[in-house]
């Protein structure tokens, strides 16, 4: 029971980070129908920037309150990621908005390669350890142990996710975003500045990605220039699992994928009589994804897309 609770808890922590990143994928997909392959790298850039700011602040102002340090680092990371996303959209996606569907996919891959290698040139090939700002405390919860960092991750993600849902469903900006995702042309006719809305969508997604990067860095205490790729992939899988284009679906998919992964890693050996070890954790996640999509081809919460008449 203890192990099970622990796996659930780990799954929730991992899942909330997946969900944050998945939201970025799903928002962009909802509006442009584009798989933003560079999103994972934005997460990495966020983590790297935050780390750089934290180490600079630690060496220049060693007496600064750790909370202020992390806040400043977070703001810097969000700012960098948002402007990065703005330029990516402006330079690599907007010129191709009416191009064949796969053309922006290739530029997205190009951007992803570009960002990874720029990060490698700036920050090097080695794994970088994240300095510990707060003393880690461990709490007992339902027989499982949880660190203060993990609690922080779950709280921050929950706040951000609900904030995003409020923005999308109850503000004027959100209404414009939803209208744009329905039909760019009609939204334009209603007086919505479609280009601006698309830019803003990219930037919100990038802001969430920056926070996700910091949370991941805090949880694992290491960052690496290639950390974004697999994370982005998992988050995209989560977005599809939930039904891509659907915000609630991305959250659900992210949490579910986190749970599946950690429970899969813990129990796959028992389930298969010891034949498959925990190396197969990703196999487990993908098999669940395939099975879900076979029975619900548009994801768990995706709307049934009517075939064109």
């Amino acid at each position, binding site marked *: 029971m203890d192990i099970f609770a622990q796996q659930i808890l780990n799954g929730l922590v991992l899942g909330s980070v997946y969900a944050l990143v998945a939201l970025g994928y799903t928002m962009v997909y909802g509006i442009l129908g584009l798989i933003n392959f560079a999103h994972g790298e934005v997460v990495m850039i966020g983590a790297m920037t935050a780390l750089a700011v934290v180490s600079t602040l630690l060496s220049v102002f060693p007496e600064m309150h750790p909370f202020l340090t992390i806040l400043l680092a977070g703001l810097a990371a969000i700012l960098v990621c948002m402007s990065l996303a703005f330029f990516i959209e402006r330079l690599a996606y907007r010129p191709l908005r009416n191009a064949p569907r796969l053309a922006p996919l*290739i530029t997205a891959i190009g951007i992803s390669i570009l960002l990874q290698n720029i990060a490698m040139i700036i920050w090097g090939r080695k794994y970088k350890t994240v300095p510990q700002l707060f003393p880690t405390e461990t709490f007992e919860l339902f027989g499982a142990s949880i660190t203060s960092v993990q609690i922080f991750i779950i709280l921050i993600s929950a706040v951000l996710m609900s904030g995003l849902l409020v923005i999308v469903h109850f503000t004027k900006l959100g209404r414009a975003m939803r209208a744009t995702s329905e039909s760019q042309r009609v939204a334009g006719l209603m007086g919505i500045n479609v280009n601006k809305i698309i830019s803003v969508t990219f930037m919100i997604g990038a802001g969430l990605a920056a926070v996700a990067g910091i949370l991941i860095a805090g949880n694992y205490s290491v960052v690496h220039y290639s950390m974004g790729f697999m994370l982005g992939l998992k988050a995209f899988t989560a977005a599809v699992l939930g039904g891509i284009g659907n915000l609630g679906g991305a959250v659900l998919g992210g949490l579910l994928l986190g749970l599946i992964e950690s429970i899969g890693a813990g129990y796959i050996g028992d389930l298969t009589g010891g034949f498959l070890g925990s190396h197969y954790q990703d196999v487990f996640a993908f098999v669940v994804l*395939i099975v879900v999509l076979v029975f619900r081809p548009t994801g768990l919460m995706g709307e049934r897309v009517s075939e064109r008449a």
Partner: protein
Amino acid sequence: MKHFVQDLWCKFRNNRKALFCGYILLFLALAVLPFLLSNTVGRTWVRILDFALIYAMLALGLNIVVGFAGLLDLGYIAFYAVGAYTWALLASPQFDLHLPFWAILPIGAGMAALFGVLLGAPTLRLRGDYLAIVTLGFGEIIRIFLNNLDHPVNVTNGPIGINKIDPISIGGADLTRTHELLGISFSGVHTYYYVLLALLFMTIVICVRLEKSRIGRAWLAIREDELAAQAMGINTRNVKLLAFALGAMFGGIAGGLFASLQGFVSPESFGLLESIMVLCMVVLGGMGHVYGVLLGAILLTVLPEILRSTASPIQRTLFGDVYIDPEALRMLLFGLALILVMLMRPTGLWPAPKRRTAADPDIAKD
């Protein structure tokens, strides 16, 4: 200028004699190319050319799935892996099997085709990007299995991979050795080049013929509008499965050739990045156009190698020292090239000639 070139090209195509001469010239050029390369820039470039030919075959296979049938496959490298490992297991000391290549080639192709159907069957109902993510997952599953099937029973030798794979041998003549023929000595990479060229030529003929066949037109119809294709009496299930199987088959053959040329396979060569690379070749060259895809495959194999050999010398001459990690710089320029080409030519470098006119931009976009 563009019209002038097009006119010239049209005249050239319609003139049988000129076309015949052109083919002869192309044939001669391809025949002497490896010798030209090994005598000017070194034998490694012939080897790179060999890999370019293998990748061209691979890209043509993916083109059947993505270009003809319009099914976005992000896990295509899995079939390449299946072909490579089939070859590796049947012709290496791993199980002490040493089947001849004419026996392995069909087995590898068949295995890959079988996996293609295995992937295709559960995904028939999925569309667009849902299909993309499932194929991606499938590719990862295959890779993870290859990586971990060294226990409890050792099949794939895990992350270390399989070594000492037999080279192709024709009539008892081992292709990696140097052979003398008509006073010219052919080293291993040279003979491989001709074998691969012949196989690639067959692949091209099959692809071009397929595209113009009944099946090819059915694929095109499905790509443009699956519902309408169904209404026209096309059995979309069978035709889609056929696309998966045929595409996978070419991938499997290419994989087998890769294993025999390299003499070694490990799961590392079959990651998601490789799948994406092959997709880039297809899209960058011109999706659905056989010759465009060929161009894309050869460019994207040769370009990184050129960048690899020039990344540090150029820095040294410009700045006097190597400041930027040449490997990073190479990939950086490569990513930049992908973006720039796509921005300038969104339909690819050499797209298929346009058949239908898209009157309504909204319909065309969908």
